[in-house]
C-alpha cells in the first residue's frame, strides 16, 4: 500500500495550525462536545472541510450544538464541508482478524481524504477511534493508531483532533501510556477548566498546577511508602500464627485473618459482618460488655485469658489482647483483637502441675549450683519440712539439698540430660536418715533441672527382712548339712579303719562331694543377698597369686575326671585382698569352664602381669557365649536361653558374685567368646608394688611384735 504523493496540501486554519495533531483530555462530556464543536465551527467558518469520526450519541450532541451556532446543516453536508462517519464502524474497517491492519487504514483514510480534498480546501479531522479503543482497554492498539495518524500526516495535510476522557486514565498503571499519548501529538490541550481562564489567570493556574504537581509527586511518594508498609503489615497479619481481627464498637467483625480462620474454624467470609460474641461461650454473657466498656474508655485489655468456642464446638483457651482503634480525630471507633490459642499449652501446664502435685514422688526444681527453686509437697514431706519453713533463702534446708544432690544436679546440668536414678541417703529435718532413689533430669539449655525423689524406706526394710531371712535360711540349711557331712566323714573313717566295703566307701565319697556342692550353693545364695546390700565382708591381706591359682586348680582338678586343667605362665606378683574370695572367683570360672564344655577335655589357665596388673584368663573349648549375652551373664539370676529355648542349668549368680568380688578388689572381669567357639574369661587385678609390699611387711612385723609381748 502506498500513499499517493503530491496530494499533500497545506491548509490554513484559525486557532489550530495546519497539519497538527492535537489531543485533548477532557473531564466531562459537555466539555468534549464544546471543544469538538468549537473545532468544527471555527473550521467551517474559515471554509475548511471537516471530517468527523464519532459515536452516534456524540454526533447527535454535536449536531444540536452546531445548529445552535447557526450552522446550516443540509447546506454544509451538501457542500461536502462537513462529513460525519461512525467511529466504531471505521475501526472495523481497519481491522483484519482483530488486528489493526496499517494498509487498510492508509487505504480507507487515503480514499476519504482524496474525496473531500477535491475541493482544495483545508481539512480538519476529529476522530474518536483512539478514545474508543482506549476505553475498550486496547491501549496498545490506540497508541498504534495514533502512530498511523502521524504517518498519514506525512502524506496528507490535515489537522487532527483527538479526545480522551480523562477518567479513563487511572493511577500509575496508565502513567507511561499517558506520556506516550502526549508524545504522539504535536499539541496537548489540558482539560476544559484551564481553557476558560484569562492569560494572567492561566499563568497563575499554571504555577498553581506546578505546585500541585510537586505536592502530588511528594504525596504519591509518601503513599507508595505507606502502601508498601501497609502491604508488609497486611502480610504479617496474614502470616502470623495469632488470630488478628477487628471489630467496630458494636462488636461487628470487620476483618479476619488466616490464623483466625485456622484457630476458630470460620472463614473471613463467614465472620466479617458477624457479631464477635458468636465466638463467646454461652456461660460468659457479661464478658463482651466488660471488654467493650474498657475499649470505649480508650483502655486496652492485655493478655486476657478466656475461653472461645470454635465452629466445631470445641472450647479453646485463648490469650487475647484487645486494643482500641481510633480515627484521625482520636475517637475510638472500634477494637483490634490479637488472640493466641493456648489450649495445648494450658493442658500441658495443667498436666505438669498435676504431676508436680502428685504425692507419689517428691519433685524439686533446682538450678545448676543446687539452689532450690521449687519443691512439691511430697518432697517437703520426705524431708520433714513445712512449706513455710522451706522458703528460698532458708540456708539450712538449702545446704542439706546441696549436699545430698549436688553431684547429681551438677552431672545432669553438665551433660544437659538425665542422670540414671541412684540410691542415696538424705537427712530429714529431724536428723533421721532417709534412704531414697533420686533421678535428676536437666531441662535443656536452662541450667535448671528437675529431680524426682522416691522414698525407699519400705523397700530397704523389706530388703533387710529378706537378708535376715536368707541368713536364717542358710543357717537352718547348713545345720543338717553339717550333721550329714559329719556323719559321712565319721562313717568313712570307721569303714576305712575296719577295711570295709570299698564300694560303700566310694559312694560315701560321692555323697560327700554332693554335700560340698550343696554347701557352695547355699553360700552363693547368702553371698548374693549380702552383696546387694554391700554387707559382704572382705579380709585384707597379701595374697600371693601363683600359689593361690596352683592350689585352686589342684582342688578343682580333683573333682573332675573329664577335663585336664593346665596352667600357663605365672604372675610372680601378689595382690591385696581376700584370699578366699579371690579363690572363689577362680573356682567359679573353672567350674563354669568344665560345666559348659561337656565335649571338651581341657581348660587352660593363663597367668601374666602387665601394666601394674595381674592378668589371668580361663579358657574353655565348649559351647561359647553369643555376644548379645556378654554383659548380661554378669547380671544376677541371668540365664542364657538359646534359640531352642534351652536353658542351661544353674542359679545365675556365680558370675555376678565373681564380678562383684573383682570390683571390690579394684579389678575387672570380662568375657571373650563366640557362640560355638568356647569362651575365655579374663580378669585383671592391681598388684602390690614393691613399695607397697615393703610397707605391708612392716605392718605385719609390728603386729607380730605386739602379739609377742
Amino acid at each position, binding site marked *: 500500500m502506498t500513499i499517493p504523493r503530491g496530494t499533500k496540501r497545506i491548509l490554513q486554519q484559525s486557532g489550530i495550525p495546519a497539519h497538527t495533531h492535537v489531543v485533548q483530555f477532557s473531564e466531562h462530556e459537555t466539555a468534549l462536545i464544546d471543544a469538538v464543536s468549537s473545532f468544527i465551527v471555527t473550521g467551517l467558518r474559515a471554509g475548511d472541510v471537516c471530517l468527523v469520526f464519532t459515536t452516534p450519541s456524540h454526533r447527535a450532541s454535536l449536531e444540536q450544538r452546531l445548529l445552535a451556532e447557526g450552522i446550516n446543516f443540509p447546506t454544509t453536508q451538501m457542500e461536502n464541508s462537513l462529513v460525519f462517519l461512525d467511529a466504531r464502524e471505521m475501526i472495523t474497517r481497519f481491522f483484519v482478524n482483530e488486528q489493526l491492519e496499517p494498509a487498510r487504514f492508509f487505504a480507507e483514510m487515503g480514499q476519504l481524504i482524496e474525496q473531500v480534498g477535491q475541493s482544495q480546501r483545508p481539512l480538519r479531522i476529529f476522530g474518536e477511534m483512539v478514545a474508543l479503543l482506549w476505553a475498550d482497554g486496547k491501549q496498545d492498539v490506540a497508541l498504534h493508531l495514533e502512530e498511523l495518524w502521524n504517518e498519514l500526516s506525512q502524506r496528507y495535510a490535515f489537522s487532527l483532533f483527538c479526545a480522551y476522557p480523562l477518567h479513563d486514565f487511572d493511577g500509575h498503571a496508565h502513567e507511561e501510556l499517558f506520556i506516550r499519548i502526549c508524545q504522539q501529538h504535536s499539541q496537548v490541550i489540558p482539560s476544559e477548566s484551564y481553557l476558560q481562564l484569562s492569560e494572567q489567570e492561566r499563568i497563575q493556574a499554571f504555577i498553581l498546577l506546578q505546585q500541585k504537581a510537586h505536592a502530588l509527586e511528594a504525596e504519591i511518594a509518601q503513599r507508595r511508602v505507606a502502601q508498601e508498609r501497609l502491604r508488609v503489615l497486611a502480610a504479617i497479619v496474614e502470616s502470623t500464627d495469632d488470630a488478628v481481627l477487628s471489630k467496630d464498637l458494636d462488636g461487628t467483625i470487620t476483618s479476619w485473618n488466616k490464623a483466625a480462620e485456622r484457630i476458630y474454624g470460620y472463614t473471613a467470609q463467614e465472620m466479617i459482618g458477624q457479631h464477635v460474641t458468636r465466638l463467646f461461650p454461652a456461660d460468659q454473657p457479661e464478658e463482651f460488655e466488660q471488654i467493650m466498656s474498657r475499649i470505649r474508655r480508650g483502655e486496652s485489655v492485655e493478655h486476657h485469658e478466656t475461653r472461645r468456642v470454635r465452629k466445631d464446638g470445641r472450647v479453646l483457651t485463648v490469650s487475647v489482647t484487645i486494643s482500641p482503634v481510633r480515627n484521625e480525630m482520636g475517637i475510638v471507633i472500634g477494637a483490634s483483637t490479637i488472640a493466641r490459642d493456648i489450649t495445648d499449652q494450658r493442658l500441658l501446664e495443667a498436666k505438669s502441675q498435676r504431676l508436680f502435685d502428685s504425692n507419689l514422688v517428691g519433685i524439686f526444681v533446682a538450678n545448676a549450683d543446687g539452689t532450690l527453686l521449687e519443691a512439691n509437697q511430697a518432697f517437703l514431706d520426705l524431708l520433714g519440712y513445712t512449706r513455710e519453713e522451706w522458703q528460698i533463702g532458708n540456708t539450712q534446708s538449702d545446704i542439706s539439698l546441696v549436699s545430698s544432690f549436688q553431684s547429681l544436679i551438677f552431672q545432669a546440668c553438665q551433660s544437659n540430660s538425665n542422670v540414671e536414678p541412684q540410691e542415696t541417703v538424705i537427712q530429714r529435718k529431724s536428723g533421721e536418715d532417709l534412704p531414697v532413689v533420686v533421678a535428676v533430669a536437666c531441662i535443656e539449655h536452662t541450667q535448671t533441672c528437675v529431680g524426682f525423689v522416691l522414698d525407699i524406706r519400705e523397700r530397704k526394710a523389706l530388703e533387710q527382712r529378706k537378708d535376715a531371712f536368707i541368713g536364717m535360711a542358710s*543357717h537352718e540349711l547348713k*545345720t543338717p548339712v*553339717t550333721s550329714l557331712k*559329719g556323719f559321712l*566323714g*565319721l562313717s568313712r*573313717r570307721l569303714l576305712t579303719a575296719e577295711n570295709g566295703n570299698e564300694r560303700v566307701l566310694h559312694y560315701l565319697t560321692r555323697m560327700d562331694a554332693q554335700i560340698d556342692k550343696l554347701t557352695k550353693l547355699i553360700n552363693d545364695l*547368702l553371698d548374693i543377698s549380702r552383696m546387694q546390700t554391700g554387707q559382704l*565382708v572382705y579380709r585384707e591381706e597379701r595374697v600371693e597369686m601363683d600359689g593361690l591359682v596352683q592350689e585352686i586348680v589342684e582342688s578343682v582338678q580333683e573333682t573332675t575326671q573329664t577335663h585336664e586343667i593346665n596352667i600357663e605362665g605365672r604372675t610372680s606378683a601378689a595382690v591385696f585382698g581376700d584370699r*578366699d574370695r579371690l579363690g572363689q572367683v577362680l573356682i567359679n570360672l573353672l567350674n563354669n569352664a568344665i560345666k559348659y564344655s561337656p565335649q571338651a577335655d581341657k581348660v587352660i589357665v593363663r597367668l601374666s602381669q602387665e601394666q601394674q596388673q595381674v592378668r589371668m584368663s580361663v579358657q574353655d573349648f565348649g559351647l561359647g557365649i553369643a555376644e548379645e549375652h556378654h554383659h548380661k551373664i554378669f547380671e544376677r539370676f541371668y540365664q542364657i536361653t538359646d534359640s531352642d529355648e534351652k536353658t542351661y542349668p544353674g542359679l545365675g549368680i556365680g558370675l555376678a558374685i565373681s564380678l562383684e568380688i573383682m570390683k571390690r578388689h579394684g579389678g575387672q572381669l570380662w568375657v571373650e567368646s563366640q557362640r560355638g567357639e568356647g569362651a575365655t574369661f579374663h580378669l585383671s587385678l592391681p598388684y602390690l608394688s614393691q613399695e607397697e609390699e615393703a610397707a605391708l611387711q612392716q605392718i605385719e612385723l609390728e603386729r607380730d611384735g605386739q602379739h609377742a609381748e
Partner: protein
Amino acid sequence: MVNMLSKAVSQKTILVIDDDPDILTFLQDLLELEGYHVFATNRGEYLETIRQEDLPDLILLDVFLSGKDGRKIIKYLKAQEMTKLIPVIMFSAYPGVEAVVRATGADDFLSKPFDTDILLTKVQAFLS
C-alpha cells in the same frame, strides 16, 4: 554324760558346745574315735560354773547358740584368768563372721559344714 574325773591322765579333754544334738553326737563320736575325752553340751552357760579340775584342754564353740551368743562366751573365757589360756576353735554356718570371731579372741575358725580331716588336723595342732 561322761564323768570328767574318770579320764585317763594322759587323755586330752575337749569341750564341745553346740545347740544341735546331731552335731554334738558326731563331733563326740569322731573325737572319741581319735582317742580324745569329749564333753559335749548344748548349754553355753556351763562354762560359767566350771571348776578348775574340770577345765578342758580345748574348746570347740559354735558362734550362734540358741539363746546364747558364742561371742559372749569366748569374751568371758578370754577375760577369766582361769580359762584365758585354753585354746578355742569356733565354728559357724556364716563364713562372714570369721573376722569378727577372731577379733573376740578365738584361736581358730571353721565354717560349717566342716571337713572331718580339716577339723581333726586343727584339733591335733592345738593338743600336740
